[in-house]
């Protein structure tokens, strides 16, 4: 009798709580994205571009460039995919050569005919996205600041840029995979797992930008160090990014680009998960015995 009364009450309470913390909604969206992405051109493009030799996902090192490539080919698909409104400025820019981008953009990005030709248009995409989303671009000095010091107190939001850039240098092969980098990421994951929202020490804490960068840093670290614990942390940071973007959507403040970045991270995570599952499955089904 008691059970008959309590079961539905507890179930309703759990659902309300899940909604309150965004878990259920997030799971629904993630599942929908995962389904859609199975057939999306973005997925196949990333898979082809990132895993040509079966060496595991290298998408993190080329992620932003791929985003640019993909947008150029499919400027509105990502909006359709997520059921979000079109992103005119991105679509416009994706269809035009860099040199024909709006004047203010060209000026702010430092685009010239020479460097656009020499470096190719893709190199401007990270800066473009950063510029339009309000994310401060990483400076060389920032990227080289002493990272272990960042782990001591709370992590300043700018520290995530440094973390992101450090792991990216390793991925690009511009820097050797150092013991220090691995230890830093171990410490970062530990701190994040223990403190979550308390990770960030400055006024940017809890901002979408902080979470989306942290997610990307963890995704990249999971590839560099082949450590699924970092991917696990990425999933959790991604949850926070989601909550932040939902809050911004409700308040009418969400930028299409924010949603796009969220979606991009989601794609990276889905690909990383499917690669991980493939690797785990091939390892265990062959070697592990059942009782």
């Amino acid at each position, binding site marked *: 009798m008691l059970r008959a009364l*309590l079961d539905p009450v*507890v179930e309703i309470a759990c659902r309300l709580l899940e909604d309150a913390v965004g878990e259920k909604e997030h799971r629904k969206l993630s599942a929908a994205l995962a389904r859609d992405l199975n057939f999306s051109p973005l997925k196949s493009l990333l898979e082809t571009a990132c895993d040509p030799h079966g060496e595991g996902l290298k998408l993190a090192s080329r992620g932003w460039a791929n985003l640019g490539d993909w947008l150029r080919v499919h400027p509105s698909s990502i909006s359709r995919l997520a059921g979000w409104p079109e992103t005119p400025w991105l679509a416009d820019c994706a269809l035009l050569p860099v040199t024909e981008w709006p004047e203010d953009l060209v000026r702010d990005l430092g685009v010239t005919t020479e460097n656009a030709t020499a470096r190719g248009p893709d190199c401007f995409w990270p800066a473009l996205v950063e510029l339009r989303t309000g994310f401060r671009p990483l400076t060389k000095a920032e990227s080289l600041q002493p990272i272990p010091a960042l782990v001591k107190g709370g992590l300043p939001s700018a520290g995530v840029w440094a973390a992101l850039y450090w792991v990216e240098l390793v991925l690009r092969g511009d820097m050797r995979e150092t013991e220090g980098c691995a230890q830093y990421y171990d410490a970062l994951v530990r701190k994040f797992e223990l403190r979550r929202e308390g990770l960030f020490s400055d006024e940017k804490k809890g901002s979408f930008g902080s979470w989306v960068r942290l997610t990307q840093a963890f995704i990249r670290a999971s590839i560099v160090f082949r450590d699924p614990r970092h991917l696990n942390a990425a999933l959790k940071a991604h949850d926070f990014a989601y909550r932040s973007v939902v809050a911004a959507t409700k308040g009418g403040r969400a930028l299409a680009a924010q949603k796009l970045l969220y979606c991009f991270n989601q794609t990276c995570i889905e690909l990383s998960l499917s690669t991980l599952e493939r690797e785990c499955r091939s390892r265990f089904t062959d070697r592990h015995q059942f009782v």
Partner: protein
Amino acid sequence: MNVVVVSPIATSLYSLLVAEQVAREPGVVVTGVLLRRVLNPRRLRKEFARDGVRLLRKVYQKLIVAPTVPRCAPPPADSLSGLRDRCNLRQTSITDWVKVRKVPLCRVFDLNEPAALAFLRRCRADVVCFTGGGLLRSEFLGAAGAGVLNVHVGILPFYRGMDVVEWPWAWPGVEHGQTGATLHVMNAGLDTGPILQVLPFDRRRGESFLAFRERLAPRQVELQLAGVRAIRDGAAVPPPQSTEDGLQFYVMHPRMRLLAESVFTDISLSRS
């Protein structure tokens, strides 16, 4: 030899069986049971931060559902309930058990609070069997005689921390893809204490993590008993583990758990 049993919750069948089996052991007396209070705001806050909504379901399952489920059929022999039947144990909670056995009971909000330490000293514990209840500080560990025995449901030293039944199945890079349990003496680190015994334990085809954990639970009781016997018989405690021998694992995200379970049960997500 005096043994104190630490229990995380009154209805823990694991705690109950450890207390009973240890009490039946020749030359061993259970001199006290230290029970952590459930309605503890700090504990609830901390565990909610760790487990999220699944905590509510866990609490409901443990406190309301489990004690009231009618027994229609005999429980599986390789479960804790099966072990309880084999032991002819009638009590369903550690609080009932201490009344029958006339063993002192101490309820505390936190295992590290002064009342818990005072109780431990009053019981003159030669060894403590830890069956859950949170992190222990060095003061507690120092007052526990030969030490605090804990059975970690993972293979140490490699898999330390949380969800270590699940993590090996999402861990492709190294040759440690094993599940099982490890008896160790707790120290100030997390799962870094001296290892007394490692028990590898294999999955069954199609088995869920939940079913696997249920099958592993009686072996945890056996390991606790083996530890008590070893200390009673004067076995030397090995040196602590080296920090570099293992990794710290954290609570798995539901998506990662889904992946691990799909590998574990050998059912592809894409095929299901």
